[in-house]
C-alpha cells in the first residue's frame, strides 16, 4: 500500500485544536487533582477514623476501577444524580480530577511518611498551629520529594485524557479518529496522532529521571 502523509497536514488546524483541548483538560486536572490528592493524603494519615475510612475507600475505588468506567459514570450518571446538565468539559474535568486526586494521594502519602516525626515534634515545641505546620513544614518537603512521581502521574493523566474521546469530547484522539474515518487513511492519521502524544510525553518521562538524579541529590532530601 502507498502512504500519503500529506493528507494529515491538510487537517493540521483541526489536530491543533484537538491538542489544545487535550492540553487544557490535562492542565486543569493536574492543578485540581494535585490539590485534591494532597488533602486526601492528609485525610488518610489523620487521627479521625471516619476521615481515614472515607478517604481510603475513595482512593481504592478510583484506583481499582478502569478510568473508562469512571468517565462513563460521570458523563451519563452524574447529571442524573445531580439533576443538572454538565458541559462536556465540566464532566471531563470532574472525572479526570477525581482520578488524578486518587493517584496523586498515594504519591503524597509516601512522601508525607518521609517527613520525620522529629520535625512534627519540633513544630509542637515551637507552638506552630496545625495549619502552619501543614503549609510551611510538611507541604514544601512533601511536594519536593513527591516531584518525580507527581510528574509521572501527570504524564499518566495526559495519556488517560485520550479516553474522553470515547464520550465524545473533541480532544486530539477524537479529532484524529474523526479525520481517520473520513479520509479512510487510518495508518497515516493515527500514526501522526500517536507521534504527537509521544513527542509531548517522552521528554516529560526523561525529565522525571533528571529530577530524580540531579535535583533531589543536590538538595540531599
Amino acid at each position, binding site marked *: 500500500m502507498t502512504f500519503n502523509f500529506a493528507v494529515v497536514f491538510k487537517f493540521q488546524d483541526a489536530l491543533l485544536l484537538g491538542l489544545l483541548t487535550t492540553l487544557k483538560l490535562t492542565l486543569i486536572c493536574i492543578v485540581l487533582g494535585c490539590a485534591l490528592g494532597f488533602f486526601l493524603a492528609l485525610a488518610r494519615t489523620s487521627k479521625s477514623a471516619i476521615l481515614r475510612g472515607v478517604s481510603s475507600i475513595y482512593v*481504592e475505588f478510583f484506583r481499582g*476501577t478502569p478510568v473508562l468506567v469512571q468517565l462513563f459514570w460521570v458523563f451519563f450518571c452524574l447529571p442524573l444524580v445531580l439533576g443538572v446538565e454538565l458541559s462536556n468539559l465540566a464532566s471531563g474535568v470532574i472525572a479526570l480530577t477525581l482520578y488524578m486526586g486518587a493517584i496523586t494521594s498515594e504519591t503524597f502519602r509516601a512522601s508525607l511518611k518521609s517527613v520525620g516525626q522529629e520535625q512534627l515534634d519540633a513544630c509542637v515545641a515551637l507552638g506552630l498551629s496545625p495549619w502552619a505546620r501543614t503549609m510551611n513544614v510538611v507541604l514544601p518537603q512533601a511536594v519536593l520529594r513527591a516531584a518525580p512521581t507527581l510528574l509521572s502521574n501527570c504524564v499518566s493523566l495526559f495519556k488517560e485524557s485520550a*479516553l474522553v*474521546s470515547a464520550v465524545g469530547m473533541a480532544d486530539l*484522539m477524537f479529532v484524529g479518529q474523526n479525520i481517520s474515518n473520513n479520509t479512510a487513511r*487510518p495508518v497515516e492519521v493515527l500514526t501522526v*496522532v500517536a507521534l504527537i502524544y*509521544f513527542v509531548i*510525553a517522552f521528554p516529560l*518521562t526523561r525529565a522525571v529521571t533528571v529530577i530524580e538524579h540531579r535535583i533531589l541529590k543536590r538538595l540531599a532530601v
Partner: protein
Amino acid sequence: MSYTFDFASVFRNMAPLWDGLLVTIQLTIAANVIGLTLGFVLALLVMSRWRAIRLPVTLFIEFFRCTPAIIQIVWFFYCVPMLFNVFLGSVTMGIMALGLNLAAFNAEAYRASIQAVPREQLDAGVALGLTPFQRVLYIILPTAVRNSVPVLLTNGIGTFQQSALVAIVAVQDLMYQGKTLATLTYRPIETFTIVALVYFAVSFPVSQIVGYLERRREVLAS
C-alpha cells in the same frame, strides 16, 4: 434527587455481563502471559552491549509507555490489517495490543530490578568461577524476579483495567456489555455502578496483595 433506583433490571440481565467478564479475564490472562515473557526478553535486550539492539528496543518500549493505550488499541485494530493484510479475531487483536503494551511496562520493571542486584553479588559469582550464563541464571534471575513481583502484579492488574478500552473497538468485554445493557435498559446509573463494582472486586484483592508484599519487604529489609 428524584430518581428511583432499579437494580433488579441489571440483575435480570446478568448473563451478558458474566460473558463479558469472562472475555475481560481471558484478555487479561493472555496479555499477562505475553507481557511477562516478552517483557523479560525486552529487558535483557535493552541492557545489551550492542547499540544496534538497544536502540530499537528502547524505542519500542518508550513508544508504548509514552502514548495513550487507547490509541495503541485503535491503531492496532485499524492499521495492522491494512499494513500486513491480515485480520485476526478481534479478541486476538485485543490480546496482542494489550500484551505489547504490558510487555513495555514490564520490561522497565524487570530492568529496574535487574540493575538493583548488588554489584558485589556478581563479583562473588566471578570469584566462585561461575560462567556468565550461570551468573544470570542463579544470581540475577532469582533476585530480580522476586524483587519485581509487586510491580509486575500492579502492571498486570493495570492491564485488567486497561482491557476495558477494547470496548471502544467493539470487543464484547465487560465494559462493552455494560454499555449495551445501559442503553437497552435506560438504566446507566445502576449498570455502570455494577460494572465498576465488578472491576473493583477483581482489582482490589490484588492491590491488597501487592501492599502486603511491599510491607513485608520493608520489614525484611530493615
